C-alpha cells in the first residue's frame, strides 16, 4: 500500500515575538512540523507496518525544509521518503490542497492520503476536505481509528453527538483527530537512518488566493497581576484561598 502523509512546516508559535505595534516578528522562529501533522505520519506508519507498503511525506512550502534538522526529525518518525512542493507555506487551504492534488498525481497516485487535525499556523481543518474533493476520492474528517480490510478501510469518526463507523473504499483521503495515536519519539537509530532517506522536490501550480490579508495583528493584551507565590503548600494554598475569597 502506498500511503501519503501530509505535513506542513510552519514557524513555531512559541518563537514568534509580538512587536509593540502588535505585528508579529517571525524572524527568529524555528520551523516545525505541527504536532497534529505527526499524527498523520504515525497513523501512516502503523498502517504500512500492518499491511505492508511505503509512507511518503508530502509538504507544500519549501522554506522550512532548507535545514537538514527538520527533515531528519520527520523522516525519523516513520516516513520512508519526503517530497517537498515549492510554494507559499502560508497559502490558503484551496491553494495548498490544489498543489497537493497535483503532487499526488505527479507521484503516480497512492492508496491512502492521511492528514492531521489541523495545521499549527492556519488551523483551517480544511486541507484534507478540499484535497479529497479535488482528487474525487472518498473523504472524511475527524477519523479516530483506522482498520484496513482489503480494498477498503473501516474508520471510526468522532462527531459532536456520537461516533460513526464508516466503510471507505480505497483510494481515500482521511483527516485524523489529534487523539488517534501518540506520535513516536525517534530513537538514535531512527535518526541516523533518517539521514539516508530520500528527499525530493516536485513542482505543482497553485491557484490564486481566496482572500487578501488586510492585517495580521496580535490581540490587545490584558494586563495581569502576575503575583506568584512559592514555598510551603499549606501556606501558598492559604494565600490563594485568601485571594479567591476577596474576588
Amino acid at each position, binding site marked *: 500500500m502506498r500511503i501519503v502523509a501530509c505535513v506542513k512546516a510552519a514557524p513555531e508559535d512559541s518563537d514568534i515575538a509580538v512587536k509593540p505595534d502588535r505585528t508579529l516578528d517571525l524572524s527568529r522562529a524555528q520551523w516545525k512540523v505541527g504536532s497534529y501533522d505527526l499524527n498523520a505520519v504515525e497513523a501512516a506508519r502503523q498502517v504500512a507496518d500492518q499491511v505492508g507498503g511505503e509512507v511518503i511525506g508530502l509538504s507544500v512550502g519549501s522554506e522550512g525544509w532548507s535545514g537538514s534538522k527538520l527533515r531528519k526529525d520527520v523522516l525519523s518518525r516513520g516516513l520512508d521518503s519526503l517530497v517537498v512542493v515549492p510554494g507559499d507555506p502560508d497559502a490558503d487551504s484551496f491553494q495548498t490542497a490544489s498543489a497537493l492534488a497535483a503532487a499526488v498525481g505527479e507521484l503516480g497516485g497512492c492508496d491512502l492520503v492521511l492528514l492531521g487535525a489541523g495545521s499549527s499556523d492556519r*488551523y483551517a*481543518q*480544511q486541507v484534507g476536505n478540499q484535497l479529497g474533493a479535488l482528487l474525487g476520492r472518498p473523504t472524511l474528517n475527524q477519523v479516530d481509528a483506522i482498520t484496513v480490510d482489503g480494498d477498503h478501510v*473501516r474508520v471510526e469518526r468522532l462527531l459532536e453527538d456520537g461516533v460513526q463507523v464508516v466503510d471507505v473504499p480505497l483510494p481515500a483521503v482521511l483527516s485524523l483527530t489529534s487523539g488517534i495515536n501518540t506520535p513516536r519519539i525517534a530513537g538514535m537509530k531512527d535518526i541516523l537512518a533518517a539521514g539516508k532517506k530520500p528527499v525530493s522536490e516536485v513542482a505543482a501550480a497553485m491557484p490564486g488566493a481566496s482572500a487578501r490579508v488586510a492585517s495580521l495583528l496580535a490581540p490587545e493584551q490584558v494586563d495581569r497581576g*502576575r*503575583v506568584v507565590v*512559592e514555598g510551603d503548600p499549606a501556606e501558598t494554598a492559604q494565600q490563594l*484561598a485568601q485571594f479567591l475569597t476577596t474576588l
Partner: protein
Amino acid sequence: MTEAWIVVHDLDGGNALARSARALAERVVAVSVGAGGLADADLTLTVDAAPGALVEAYAQPVAALLAARGATVVAFAGDVRSRLLAGQVAAHLGVGPTNVAGVVSTAPLVVTRLAYGGLAVATDEITAPVAVLVLEPGAVTPSDVAGQGAVEPVDATPTAGLTLVETRPKGGEQVDLTAAKRVVGVGRGFAAEADLDLARAVANRLGAELACSRPISEGVGWMPAERYLGVSGATIKPDVYLAIGISGQIQHLVGVNHAKVIVAINKDKNAPIFQQADFGVVGDLYQVLPALVDAL
C-alpha cells in the same frame, strides 16, 4: 436585496445558522440536506437525504445547485459534518473556505480569523467570486427577525463511496461553559484520571464548572470534548479561571484570556501560564489542592 446562503444538515443547528446569517445579508436562503425546511430562513431548498447516506455525500450536487442559483455568500456551521461539507462544497466551487471569528463588514466582505494558534488575528477581505464561510461560535450576533419559511424541494443524487455501518450515539451532558462564572481547568499535570477528583473538590468549594486542556479530552479521553478550552475548543469569559497543571500554551490561553481573573497552579515556575496569571502558585498540585480545599 442582498442574499446569503447557508447549507445545513440538522434542524436546530440550521435555524441557529439562519439567524446568524442575517448578519451577512437581508435575505437568507438555505440548502437543507435531510433536515427539512427551516422556519428561520426565508426559503429552504430541501434535499431528501437517502436513508443511511452521509450528508457529506451531497457536497457535489449542493455545490452545483449553489452555482446554478448564483450564490455569492455561503455560510456553514462549525460542527464536524458542516466543516467537511464546507470544504468539499468550496473545492467544487474552486475556492477556499474561511473560518470566521468575526465579521468586520459585508460590502466588501471583510472577516477575521485566528492565526498561529490564536497568537494573532488575521483580517481577510474575501476576494473569491463565492465566499464560503464557516461561522465559528460567537462570530456574529444572531438576529431575531423571523424568516419567511418558504420551502422548495430539489432533487440531488449523492456521490457513491462512503458506507455508514453504524452510528453510536454519545450519551452526553449538555454543558454551556460560556455561561459559567467560575471555571476550574485541568491539564496534563494530572497523572491519572482518578486524580481529577482533587480538582472536582476545589470546583465544588468554588461553585465552579470543570474544564480542561485539549489533551485531557482528545488525548486521554478523561473529559468530553465540550469541556476543553482553547482555539479549537470552547471560549469562556468567567469572573475567575483557575488553571491547574496547565502549561499555558497559546492555543489554550486564547480560550480563557477573556476571564476577568486568571489563577494558576503549576509546579514549574517557568510555565508560560504564570505570564498570563493574576495570581500564581508554584507547587505540586497533589500537595496544593488538598490544602486549598481545607483553606476554602
